[in-house]
């Protein structure tokens, strides 16, 4: 199951980056531009609906760049994803409290979406759970690989995935029932 033989390249830098690297001004810029599409998609999955994905990527980049060059990281894609996930979790907590506070001030205001979408089901999951499902089902990572990307244990990843699917199923059944 867990036959790790060395460091895994969790987020490959695309080929065209080699050319772009030479043309960029900041040493990390070309690398970041190469990583950007994947980071942006990940951000869209983990960020609360109120937070624009590009804003989340931007905030994570600022935080990580302040600590040193991105090129010093062995797995910059994985590290940036972890940073985005942490930021998304903080956003979720803070927005949750703000919604609660606003709801108490204006109890007549409904927070329900006027245009319900099947993507709304995913919003019941924590950012970490959405990240696990996305990396598993869309990017096709193994649980070991996801564990390394997100800084979790393999076991934790499996548990999160199982619970996320169960929570989704329960939520959908509740909505439909």
């Amino acid at each position, binding site marked *: *199951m867990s036959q790790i033989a060395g460091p895994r390249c969790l987020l490959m830098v695309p080929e065209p980056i080699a050319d772009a690297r030479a043309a960029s001004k900041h040493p990390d810029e070309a690398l970041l531009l190469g990583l950007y599409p994947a980071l942006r998609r990940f951000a869209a999955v983990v960020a609360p609906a109120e937070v624009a994905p590009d804003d989340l990527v*931007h905030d994570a980049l600022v935080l990580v760049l302040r600590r040193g060059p991105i090129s010093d*990281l062995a797995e910059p894609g994985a590290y940036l994803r972890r940073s985005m996930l942490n930021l998304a979790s903080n956003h979720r907590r803070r927005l949750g409290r703000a919604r609660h506070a606003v709801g108490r001030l204006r109890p007549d205001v409904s927070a329900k979406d006027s245009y319900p979408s099947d993507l709304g089901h995913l919003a019941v999951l924590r950012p970490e759970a959405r990240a696990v499902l996305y990396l598993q089902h869309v990017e096709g990572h193994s649980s070991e690989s996801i564990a390394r990307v997100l800084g979790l244990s393999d076991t934790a990843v499996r548990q999160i995935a199982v619970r996320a699917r169960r929570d989704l199923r329960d939520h959908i059944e509740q909505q439909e029932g």
Partner: protein
Amino acid sequence: MAKLEDQLTRLADRGPVVDPRFVVRRAVQLATNDDVMLAESGSSRDGSSRRVRVLTTPGDGRRWRLVGAAAATVLIVAGIAGVFYVRSGMESPASEGTASAPPSELVPIPPVDPTDGPLLATPVPPDVQPLVSMSRPGWTIAGFSGFQPVTAQRPSARCPGCGATRLVLTADGSQFGGALFTAWTLEAYYDLDQLDTPVAIGAIPGRATSRGTGTPAAQSRMTIAWPLGPGRTAFVDASGLSDAQVIEMATALTFDSEIPVMPARPPGFQQIDTPGPSSVVEVHVNLTDGPRSVELYATNAGMHGLVDWRNPAGHLMFREMHPVVVDGVTVVVDLPPADEQPIVAMDADWITGGWGYKAVGYMFDSQAEFLEVLSELHLTDHATFAEATSGLTPFALNGFSSPTGWTSEVAGS
């Protein structure tokens, strides 16, 4: 499953398209700007909000107006907090968003001391590295991290549960199979809003996050933080206790020394004292035999390593654990699902000498088989370990390519 994949894909593609160059350059500019701390805290020197937003939030209808109001509330609070941080000369709250730590400062690598004996029962001092081999035929080392400093040597506002030397109280005679209560201090301000609900520790207001309420006691976990004064914050992390019990025990703590003290412990609780090393290092080895494998994580902080938030395999408080005795050593294990065959994954944790160990076993037919394999892990010498790992590239546990010292020697030999 295809439907879920489709939904996740559409979620990943949501939102308007922005030129990545704009976002990246703005981030680089902000990160390298002298004024970045102010920008990150959400305030300029005159106190006005100047946090750069790359995009405005798309809005439609009253849901978004509500969200806008909520976001405005968040920004106002963040702005006020930012002014407070800047004026206090403290760490920006924005930096607390990442639990993953920055590149650690490398500490001198302790000398290797080749040794022998069963890993479970042989005490290894915290400044000596356990090199592991398997006596059972068929097993090989498939990966290892080397001997590297952990990513955060001391607790910080970014990760207050990392690197802390704690008061550790356990509720049973087998050390750490039952309820756990840990307490420590962070010598820094901490944004209590990171935790969910208000609590009172005596007369002091704090905040807490409680998980697992309503589940069996051993699965519950509560984390509390409250201020002890300017630049000092108290933390409690406990599992297997009710919220009321945790708050009651937290109220009984005194903080006159670096490590909190509980002068009158509840009946049945005992204090676990494990030596604290001068620098905390961790090592990971992955052993396989066909479909079965064992991931072994070791941290030279004894009990403190097992409850540390940065434990790469997840710390003890994440799940219900049960003590068993293997070769005379108390090992705590989780209970795998009764109908799972083979067992996909199971954990075992133990402390021997200055080291805390966590082993994760995959695809074993039974827990007994897993524990049997653990009992056949042996300490070995440097040359044997180097031979067993030849051809493997050590990887970094913390995301940075900084394994140094003997790890490099092994890789290059």
